[in-house]
C-alpha cells in the first residue's frame, strides 16, 4: 500500500498528485513551485519506496506515463503532466 504525503495549500480546487524522485532537480522544482503558489498536493517519492511498494509505485506511474519519467503529475485523476512544465503548474493557482 502506498502512503502518499500531503502538502496543504490555499488552492485545492484540483486534485494534484505527484510521482517524484527525492534526488531529481526537476521534481524538487515542481514541489517548490506548488508550495510557493500554495497549491495543495499529494506525492509519492518512488525511489524511497521499499520492497513491493516500489514496484507498485512504478506500475502506477507507467499507467499514466509509459516512459516512467519524473515528475509525473496527475491532475484530477484524468490529466497527466510529464516533466517540470512551469506554465501547467502555474495554471493550478489561477483557476
Amino acid at each position, binding site marked *: 500500500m502506498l502512503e502518499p504525503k500531503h502538502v496543504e495549500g490555499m488552492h485545492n480546487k484540483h486534485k494534484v498528485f505527484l510521482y517524484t*524522485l*527525492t*534526488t*531529481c*532537480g*526537476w*521534481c*524538487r522544482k515542481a514541489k517548490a513551485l506548488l508550495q510557493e503558489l500554495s497549491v495543495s498536493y499529494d506525492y509519492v517519492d*518512488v*525511489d524511497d519506496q521499499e520492497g513491493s511498494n516500489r514496484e507498485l509505485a*512504478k506500475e502506477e506511474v507507467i499507467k499514466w506515463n*509509459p*516512459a*516512467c*519519467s*519524473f515528475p509525473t503529475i496527475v491532475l484530477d485523476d484524468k490529466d497527466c503532466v510529464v*516533466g*517540470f*512544465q512551469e506554465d501547467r503548474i502555474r495554471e493550478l493557482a489561477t483557476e
Partner: protein
Amino acid sequence: MRGIADERVAEVWERLVLEAREAGYCVNPDDTFARELVRGLLENEARYGYRACPCRLASGVQTRDIDLVCPCDYRDADLDQYGVCYCALYVSPEVNRGEKTAASIPDRRPIGGPAAEAKEMEQVRVAGLAFPVWRCKVCGYLCARPQPPLVCPVCKAGKERFERFM
C-alpha cells in the same frame, strides 16, 4: 534524504566543475541546483553502489543501468539538441553564458533501457589493424589499443562504458 554531508557534496561538485571545464563541458551555472544534483548522485551511490542519474529511476542492477551512470550515454546528444542533459547537471556553453535557459527535456533513453532493444553496434571490420579500436559510449572518444583505457581521458567514463568500434 540519506544524509550526505554538505562538505562531501561541495567537494565532489568542485571536482566535477573542474573536470568538466578541462574536458570542454559545462556544469549548470545555477550552483544550488547543480549541488543538489551532485547530492542526488552521491545518494544514489550510497543506495545502489553507482552514481545513477538523479532524475531517472535506477533498477539497482548496475549492468542494466550502466547507460544511466553519470555522465550518461545520452548527455552529449541532449546537449547538442536541447542545451542541457536530462537532469541538467551539464549544460551547453549557451546556457552556461545565460543566453538560453535550462528546461526540463524528454528522456531519449529507450523505455526499459537499452537492453530492451539490445543490438550490437555495427562493427566495421578492417583487415590488418594492428589493434582493435574502442569507442567511449559517453563522448565518442576512440583509441586503438589491446584493451580500452581504465578511464576515458576525455569524459572520465569508466572502462565498462567502452564498446569495440573496429
